[in-house]
């Protein structure tokens, strides 16, 4: 079985370089990276940092499923999905998706599919810390 996916859940700083180097392939001319970072405002409130919690073994499985779905749906060669856990500060990287494909179109589409799916299915939870409190994002209506 070829090692065509790199799935990581990490309490340490994520590396763009590592994901990029992983997906580089001689057959691929289109490489797309999505880098999700922590911004300072949400719904008009000032954000100080985020804290990510995960159900780690299931999160890894779900991320692997998303990558496998991409290999079925799109003409992509390699995929890296790396996600942070724990305390993540402003401008820090929360998630990196890297995808390589022979051509750009499938690389863009697969990358978007990965991040959109991750937000739907992967058991990771974001607690947003504001100046005046904190809450679990998306939990309540």
């Amino acid at each position, binding site marked *: 079985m070829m090692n065509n996916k790199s799935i990581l859940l990490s309490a340490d700083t994520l590396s763009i370089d590592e994901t990029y180097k992983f997906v580089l392939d001689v057959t691929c001319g289109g490489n797309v990276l999505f880098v999700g970072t922590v911004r300072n405002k949400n719904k008009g409130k000032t954000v100080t940092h985020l804290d990510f919690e995960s159900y780690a073994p299931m999160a890894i499985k779900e991320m692997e499923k998303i990558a496998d779905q991409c290999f079925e749906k799109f003409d992509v060669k390699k995929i890296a999905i790396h*996600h942070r856990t724990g305390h993540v500060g402003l401008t820090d990287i929360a998630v990196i998706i890297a995808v390589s494909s022979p051509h750009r179109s499938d690389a863009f589409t697969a990358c978007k599919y990965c991040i959109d799916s991750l937000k739907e299915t992967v058991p990771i939870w974001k607690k947003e810390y504001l100046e005046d409190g904190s809450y679990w*994002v998306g939990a309540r209506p």
Partner: protein
Amino acid sequence: MIRIKCFGVAKEIVENELLKLDSNIHSVQDLRTEIIKQYPDFLTIKGFMVAVNQEYATDDYVLEEGDEIAIIPPVSGG
């Protein structure tokens, strides 16, 4: 005795990482009903999924001894 892992807002509602239920629970639907009965605050969140052995389970799934069970509140990764 059923032991259920809790994460995120579920952990806050239950005030514990592990929820232990003694009652007569067969299916995921029974589990759901019992959780809401004991912790009505679950009605104040957008809903929750149940995972069995690290896979999303449907309400008709019949639980077995030794299953790893978790409450999955709305996810918010990325």
